[in-house]
């Protein structure tokens, strides 16, 4: 896109990215996702989130282990991107409640997450998310989240 064109609104961007699958255009538009290194990737036919490891994600320097908050953030971002890209909603859904279970400590490496929409109504969506590192069958954290979907 040339510099002279106005940048699209988030809703326009969401519609474009659903078609083009240039996911980084959407994640780059969200400052916190950019700061955290959280991106969306299409791998083996499914949409996943990846949080690229950087030392600033560490919560315990002695182990070292990722900060619990960063795993919560990845799970929540993953749910939001799933809702934006796989449903009709064009506005960032508002989280109503989030419950995170921390299952294993996160190592100093990239972390992946996959969100599953368990129920989607007109106003509320329930999403379950799992995060893992080396072995997908051994998740390091999981979450159940409830979102308020805004009208388009």
């Amino acid at each position, binding site marked *: 896109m040339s510099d002279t064109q106005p940048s699209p609104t988030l809703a326009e961007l969401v519609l474009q990215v659903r078609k083009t699958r240039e996911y980084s255009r959407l994640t780059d538009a969200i400052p916190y996702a950019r700061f955290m290194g959280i991106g969306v990737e299409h791998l083996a036919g499914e949409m996943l989130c990846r949080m690229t490891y950087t030392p600033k994600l560490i919560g315990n320097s002695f182990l070292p282990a990722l900060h*619990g908050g960063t795993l919560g953030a990845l799970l929540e971002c993953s749910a939001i991107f799933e809702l934006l890209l796989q449903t009709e909603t064009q506005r960032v859904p508002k989280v109503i409640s989030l419950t995170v279970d*921390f299952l294993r400590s996160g190592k100093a490496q990239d972390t992946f997450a996959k969100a599953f929409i368990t129920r989607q109504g007109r106003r509320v969506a329930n999403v379950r998310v799992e995060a893992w590192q080396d072995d997908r069958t051994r998740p390091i954290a999981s979450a159940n989240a409830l979102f308020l979907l805004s009208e388009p």
Partner: protein
Amino acid sequence: MERCSLFYTDIVPHNHALGLKLLDIGPAEAVVELPYADFLVGNPETGVIAGGAVTTLIDAACGSAVILRFGRFLPLVTLDLRIDYLRPARPGISLTAVAECYRATRQVAFVRALVHQGDKSNPVASAQGTFMRLEE
């Protein structure tokens, strides 16, 4: 207070990266501030801070409250954390988490927290978490 503040400097790189500040402590209570910053925005249309940053604020404040309750530094892990968002946060204003460890056994500690933007009677979020001491 000084010793506990170490958790908000280089010892915990992610707390430092977000700009978290320990404001006050009690026997089993920690008050932690997350200053508003553009890089924390989760919704570019409204300027509201991302939920992930609030999760980190709450996790950090709750962890500190547990350490204060035990009265010494010990390695901790978060077992679970539940956050209810009671109202949208207003952009441009820092968020403050007040966490209290209301019960601790030898291994497990129970914490609740409220997040507000200056008015404790009108909180943004309410949270409850469970922490465990790691074997030493």
